[in-house]
């Protein structure tokens, strides 16, 4: 353990700077809405209301040192329900920033360092040439083994393409076949798209580590990569915090971005409505039940309920309206699963699973056999708590189910499906 001390922050001053105009902490009702809806309440004997009250009481030493700041996922549900709109997540971000690097959770720090180690901006440290190799390697295999896709493309560094498509590093690194359903969808709708050998990766643990300068640099590389290719739309695929980290940083740091930001779910919904993705629920003859997990970073923290509605439209189109069961609460009021904010990389497994219990209970109450979510951290966390607490559900990407519904899901693209769907339509 390092001897580097954690400096004492003045949390009352920081909190005062975050207040909306005309508001005052003296008016705080201490209503506890923030804490009652926070899955991190009770961990480290802390909760959001207590955090604010301790700040007002000048208990800066305790707040500066509490490891709770790494268990709060900065999901902003507390702010969402707060009558005063207090941005507690910003205080947590400030506290994280204040920790010496050597005392921060090593998994988060290392994920940030690897993100900065190559021009890929990949938290797994994948160099550009490896990404280019794996895309080409997988594409050649699909063209050979699935003759109906012998002409499918996965363009790289195509200047002027409409979509600049990002990808979570998990796919090229450890589950490359999961990229294929996405390519098939683009192929089917006739999208003009490209990957980039630079700035292609989705994740940003520098933001989670509280390292604002590193966060800025990572996003600058991505913005430069999109500008360089002259793409119209930076398309965030099924990765939760990727959108938030890009959108927030562009505004926060005043970057020049000559493109729009969009989320793939929005386009899934559009392509289904336009008839370009002719999905239906005919395959679901067993009446398998589905629910969706609203990623905090996309829904509550970015688009709001608009994209949550798109997720539900897409899901119902895929599985049948009668087979969709919402979690309660949901949309912008949904609970964080506990996989966000870098918690999965924080090495605090017991606390993360306690946090995730609320999500597990939410899922269990739906009785759903499958959870759909466009976020890799949600995905990993819900799988982990499912295994840990004995849930019988599976977590799947939207792209898997879209291709399943269309009858074009290949044999190697089914890693996340349960046994009842493992061979359906093959």
């Amino acid at each position, binding site marked *: *353990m390092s001897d580097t001390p954690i400096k004492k922050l003045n949390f009352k001053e920081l909190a005062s700077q975050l207040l909306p105009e005309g508001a005052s902490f003296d008016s705080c009702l201490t209503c506890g809405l923030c804490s009652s809806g926070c899955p991190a309440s009770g961990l480290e004997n802390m909760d959001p209301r207590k955090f604010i009250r301790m700040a007002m009481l000048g208990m800066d030493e305790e707040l500066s040192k509490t490891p709770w700041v790494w268990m709060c996922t900065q999901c902003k549900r507390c702010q969402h329900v707060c009558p005063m709109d207090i941005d507690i997540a910003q205080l947590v971000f400030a506290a994280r920033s204040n920790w010496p690097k050597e005392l921060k*959770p*090593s*998994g988060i720090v*290392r*994920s940030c360092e*690897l993100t900065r*180690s190559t021009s890929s901006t*990949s*938290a*797994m*440290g*994948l*160099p550009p040439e*490896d990404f280019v*190799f*794996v895309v080409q*390697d*997988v594409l050649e295999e699909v063209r050979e083994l699935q003759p109906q896709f012998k002409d499918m493309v996965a363009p790289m560094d195509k200047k002027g393409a409409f979509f600049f498509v990002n990808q*979570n*590093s*998990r796919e*090229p*690194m*450890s*589950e*490359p076949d999961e990229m294929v359903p996405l390519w098939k969808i683009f192929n089917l709708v006739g999208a003009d798209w490209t990957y980039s050998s630079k700035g292609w990766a989705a*994740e940003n*643990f520098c933001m989670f580590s509280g390292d604002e300068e590193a966060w800025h640099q990572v996003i600058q590389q991505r913005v430069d990569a999109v500008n360089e290719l002259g793409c119209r739309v930076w398309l965030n695929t099924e*990765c939760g915090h990727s959108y938030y980290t890009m959108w927030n940083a562009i505004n926060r740091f005043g970057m020049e971005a000559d493109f729009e930001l969009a989320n793939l779910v929005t386009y899934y919904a559009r392509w289904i409505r336009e008839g370009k993705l002719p999905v239906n629920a005919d395959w679901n003859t067993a009446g398998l039940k589905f629910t969706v997990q609203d990623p905090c970073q996309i829904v509550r923290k970015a688009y709001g309920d608009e994209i949550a509605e798109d997720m539900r439209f897409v899901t119902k189109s895929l599985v049948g309206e009668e087979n969709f069961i919402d979690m309660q609460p949901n949309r912008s009021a949904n609970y964080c699963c506990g*996989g966000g904010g870098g918690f*999965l*990389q*924080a*090495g*605090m*497994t017991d606390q993360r699973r306690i946090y995730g219990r609320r999500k597990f209970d939410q899922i269990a109450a739906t009785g759903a056999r499958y959870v759909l979510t466009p976020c*890799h*951290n949600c*995905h*990993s966390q819900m799988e982990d708590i499912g295994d840990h607490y004995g849930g019988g559900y599976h977590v799947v990407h939207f792209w898997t189910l879209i291709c399943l519904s269309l009858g074009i899901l290949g044999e190697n693209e089914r890693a996340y499906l349960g046994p009842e769907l493992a061979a359906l339509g093959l």
Partner: protein
Amino acid sequence: MPTVEHNGKSFQVDEDGFLLKGMEEWNSEWVEYVKTSEGISELTDEHQKVIDALQEYYKKNGIAPMVRILSKTTGFPLKRIYELFPSGPGKGACKMAGLPKPTGCV
């Protein structure tokens, strides 16, 4: 940092049970320990081939290889690697080889 004991040997591990000092401290007792904790019944030459490939790549590149590269280097399809290491190449195999825990959204 936590430590684990196995056959009288003590190892410092990180929060997720990966060898803290990595390959610097890696030895056959560690392999035995991970074999037990991962529920692998018998270590074969195939396990060793995967460990060798992971270590060699890591020494050269400072990261674990992508599974496609691991497959090409060892000649084992991904399915076989999962049979050898049920918790997967990133978790089980990297842990046994003394590589750090995979980073990113895992």
